[in-house]
């Protein structure tokens, strides 16, 4: 069977896991304007933007021959968990014949989780399955380490675009690795590649650091957030996101009693503004803004998908946070028109404002 998955963030890891288990994998094309247009066309109008993009991504995967789509059910009070219901019904109505395998967190629905694993495990031994999971988890962790470096180096590269090219190469290297040793090799090679990038020397006090917060899909998926990290990097700003895949896994897939400290701390920081989890990542969003402020970041970009319920709540509160803490926050709505000159101008103006503030402080 030909399997596919939703396109989000570092897709190479999904591909890897399924390949290790011996599946024929159809990688959906990176979301493009076409993907988005398809998604918008077939989704309900006020469905949130990620749902629409994923819709488009599924259609493109089906065009490439996907027969089975593996996706995570998501959970919590937001609609991510319901995506699959809507997607499959719409695809059905459009006469696309695909099957969905939905993974809910294994600690929420143990039986269902293993039933699903069983379906994709094929003839592999359980040992092989657990080894594969572990391998992929390690891969994610290593990729995240390198990506964080990329996000810093990019701001100071002398040859424009060099870091991004290196990052693409690194992902490719990881894609080719399928043993522990090869993984180690890819990681070392990647580190090497990044070290070779010539950087401008910038005095610490002149460095600009921007945090990116918001709903997970638009924060993680560069092709729909107008490559915000690259834009900021090219304008000379270091970037750190609120979410990385390895953290997401720590929080959502591993059991409650381990590994959750970071996320818990962030949630605690958001408590003053949003005391309870209200769904999606709204509470994390405000928590991360507080956290970035405490860590001395110069500004925050808040990415809000069109029609995102919880982020509309955080958006309503953000002006007050800025007023109280002083950290500038720019909210960018992400929809099918994002990435236009207008957004770019707003980002540039935002960085100008920050630079202005900084030089005033120094003088």
């Amino acid at each position: 069977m030909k399997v596919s998955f939703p396109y989000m963030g570092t897709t190479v890891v999904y591909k890897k896991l399924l390949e290790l288990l011996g599946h024929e994998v159809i990688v959906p094309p990176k979301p493009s304007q076409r993907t988005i247009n398809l998604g918008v066309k077939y989704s309900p109008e006020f469905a949130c933007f990620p749902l629409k993009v994923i819709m488009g991504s599924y259609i493109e995967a089906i065009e490439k021959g996907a027969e089975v789509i593996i996706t995570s059910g998501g959970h919590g009070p937001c609609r991510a968990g319901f995506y699959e219901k809507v997607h499959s019904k719409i695809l059905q109505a459009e006469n696309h014949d695909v099957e969905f395998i939905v993974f809910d967190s294994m600690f929420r629905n143990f039986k269902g989780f293993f039933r699903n694993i069983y379906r994709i495990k094929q003839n592999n031994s359980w040992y092989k399955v657990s080894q594969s999971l572990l391998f992929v988890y390690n891969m994610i962790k290593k990729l995240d380490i390198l990506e964080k470096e990329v996000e810093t180096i990019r701001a100071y590269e002398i040859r424009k675009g060099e870091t991004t090219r290196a990052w693409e190469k690194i992902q490719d290297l990881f894609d080719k690795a399928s043993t522990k040793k090869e993984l180690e090799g890819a990681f070392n090679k990647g580190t090497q590649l990044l070290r070779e990038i010539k950087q401008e020397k910038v005095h610490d006090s002149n460095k600009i650091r921007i945090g990116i917060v918001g709903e997970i899909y638009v924060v993680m998926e560069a092709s729909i957030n107008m490559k915000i990290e690259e834009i900021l990097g090219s304008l000379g700003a270091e970037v750190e996101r609120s979410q990385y895949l390895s953290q997401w896994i720590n929080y959502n897939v591993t059991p409650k009693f381990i590994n959750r400290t970071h996320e818990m701390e962030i949630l605690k920081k958001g408590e003053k503004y949003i005391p309870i989890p209200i769904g999606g990542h709204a509470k994390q969003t405000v928590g991360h803004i507080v956290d970035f402020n405490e860590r001395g970041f110069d500004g925050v970009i808040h990415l809000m998908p069109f029609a995102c319920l919880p982020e509309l709540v955080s958006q309503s509160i953000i002006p007050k946070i800025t007023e109280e803490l002083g950290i500038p926050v720019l909210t960018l709505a992400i929809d099918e028109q994002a990435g236009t000159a207008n957004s770019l101008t707003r980002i540039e103006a935002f960085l100008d404002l920050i630079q202005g503030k900084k030089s005033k402080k120094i003088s």
Partner: protein
Amino acid sequence: MKIGIPQSLLYEYYYLFWKTYFEELGFEVVTTPPTTKGIIDKGVKLSVPEICVPIKVYIGHVATLLEEDVDYIFVPRFVSIKKGQFFCPKFMGLPDMLRYSIEGIEEKLLMPSISTKSDNIAEAFKDPKLFQGKLNIGMKDNKRAVEKAEKIWLDFRTNSKKGYSCKEAAEITVGNVGKEECVPLNKEEVNLTIGLIGYVYNVYDAFISMDIVNKLRNMGVSIKTFEMLEDDEINKELKDMSKTLFWTFSDKLLAAGYHFYKNEEVDGLIHVTAFGCGPDSMLGKLLELDSPLYNKPFMTVRIDEHSGENHLQTRIEAFVDMLKRKKINVQRGA
């Protein structure tokens, strides 16, 4: 002491409970008038542009209360009224949006958090810390007030399930009007019945829905809404779904929709939804896609801040005519 309650969002569903509770404790209850253009405009000014119309309307009502001389404004935080289920994020974050976007409002807000096992919210009000120390209520008084409020609310629900609209059911419950004076919405002898799918804050806000309830009635159509169904009927539908929406009232609408599809008395469905509602656009789509399966027409009426009344009237008339024709054809064929 005066407590203001906005006539918006879940007001239609819980007002009798809230009013009885506060009055029994000796507070004076003030409510805002039904939604007007002026109220909406105030809300629009105070909210982020993309947010759904009902939240804008609610914020407008709160702003209206601020202009009045009330001591407190009652803005409950609805979290859950069913195990494992939640409210739309905008409900859960409602008090936060208000306290961080209107300067100086926080001390005036009563923001009890509502987490109960069922629609009956009495349980939540038994907690003496409910108002974060803002109201000084004795345990004994509280107990009495909750009991009274609960009893009246349960009566109200019983009347609702007989087919009266929320407003009528409330009036009948407090004895303002007799049952004879109200026409139950799903009166059997009318030959056309429409399942009206929508939140109480859309369907019963005459300004938002342009009074669709009476419009349909005046055309001689009887109506069924989700709150007229027995809990069992709703739960049965939900049980049959492999996954539900997570949001209680959206789930109720979805379940009601499927119930109406299967219910022989119902001839067609109208979904009343407000501009910008994410949950509705999902459940609306599912119901729409399934409409051919049950061979029952489905229509969406979407309301925004400035829809045109005439337009709606014509669309509803056309829909009702179509249902009538369909019914006659079927009867002839049979």
